[in-house]
């Protein structure tokens, strides 16, 4: 009985704190650093989207039944950190279209799709809701 009460109490506390911390639709001046941060994010998204231009991309997407538009639409699900990591790795792909370059590109695209919840090739990667 006691245990149950504690449970109810904890649940109530959780509910109340959640209600308190629901982000208010905040209206305010936009700071310069916010503008710069969103610019940087847009640049990262461009780099990640460039992956889809890779010659291996069309096949990987088709095999997994995902369209490039779906990837674009879901890109804002990625956290800044994930986006940065992907963008850096995409940046470091060998410039040529050699075998290793293609394999690395395929892996990166699959990681991207997993992160977006479109596929589940790598069970260790949990999609972002």
């Amino acid at each position, binding site marked *: 009985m006691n245990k149950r009460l504690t449970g109810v109490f904890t649940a109530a506390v959780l509910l109340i704190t959640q209600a308190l911390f629901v982000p208010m639709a905040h209206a305010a*001046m936009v700071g310069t650093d916010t*503008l*710069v941060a969103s610019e940087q994010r847009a640049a990262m998204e461009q780099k990640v989207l460039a992956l889809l231009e890779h010659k291996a991309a069309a096949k990987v997407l088709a095999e997994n039944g995902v369209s490039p538009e779906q990837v674009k639409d879901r890109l804002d699900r990625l956290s800044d950190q994930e986006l940065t990591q992907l963008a850096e790795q995409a940046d470091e792909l060998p410039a040529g279209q050699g075998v290793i370059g293609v394999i690395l590109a395929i892996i990166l695209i699959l990681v991207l799709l997993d992160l977006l919840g479109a596929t589940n090739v790598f069970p260790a990667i949990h999609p972002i809701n």
Partner: protein
Amino acid sequence: MPFRGLIAGLVLLLAGCQTLPPPQSARQPANQQLDVPFIAQEKYQCGPAALGMMLQWNGLPGDAEALVDEVWLPERKGSLGIELMAAGRARGLLAYPVNRPEALFSELQAGHPVLILQNLALKRWPQWHFAVVTGYGDGGGRLILHSGTREATTSHWNRFIRTWARADYWGMVLLPAGELPASVRPGPLLHALAPQKKDALRHWRTAASRFPDDGKLHFAYANALWQAERKADALAAFEKTVTLSPSLAPAWNNLAYARLDQGNTEAAREAVCRAHMLAPDDTNIKGSVAEITDGAGCP
């Protein structure tokens, strides 16, 4: 047969050693030597020493011993470039990146010493080192550096450029408010100044007057005026921003608040609705619309 592979490998290796000559711009003038105070580094502490020299050149206290706590990481036995930049910013200086040989020579020609990172060993087995470039000779054929325990030491261009390239051409100048790097461009300037706290308003004013047509720098300048409670000036600067960059939604958003503050409700609504039209998915702007139109929304 295996010889052929070996030879091909050697040719590739040699090709890897070839470096580009110094840029043409280093020939005019062919020599340049700046007067920069020298601090000899202790142990592995080239970061604090190099930073100290840059600060002293700016007329600020730059005791390397005192800087060790601020920018030296004992477990790495080194400093991080971003921390050196942050330390400069905290003292009200603009920390601006110098990432190309042409920019390096432009800065030296303008009288600005450049703090650079070198990798003195191999890509896979790096030995990082910070030094201050204080001049050059022979049309860029040799560089003059305050490096480690050596004052005004000379490095040949070939060796210098390889060690700098292995550090991804990391470099920076530190300049007081009112001055700008010779190699300055509006985009990197916006990013360099965005984290600036101390003396921010003076820096932004300089930036906006150097690039009178750049909307984003004017936006930042207007924000700095607003933060300094100079609201009428901020209003004028936001008005100018939207004429320069009519598609910059955040500028219309902020203009709305600046107009509202001056009692111009109708014009504030027009501005915030323009922002909403430009960026319909922006949650901040949606909130602004609700607040400024008293929940009425945009037509």
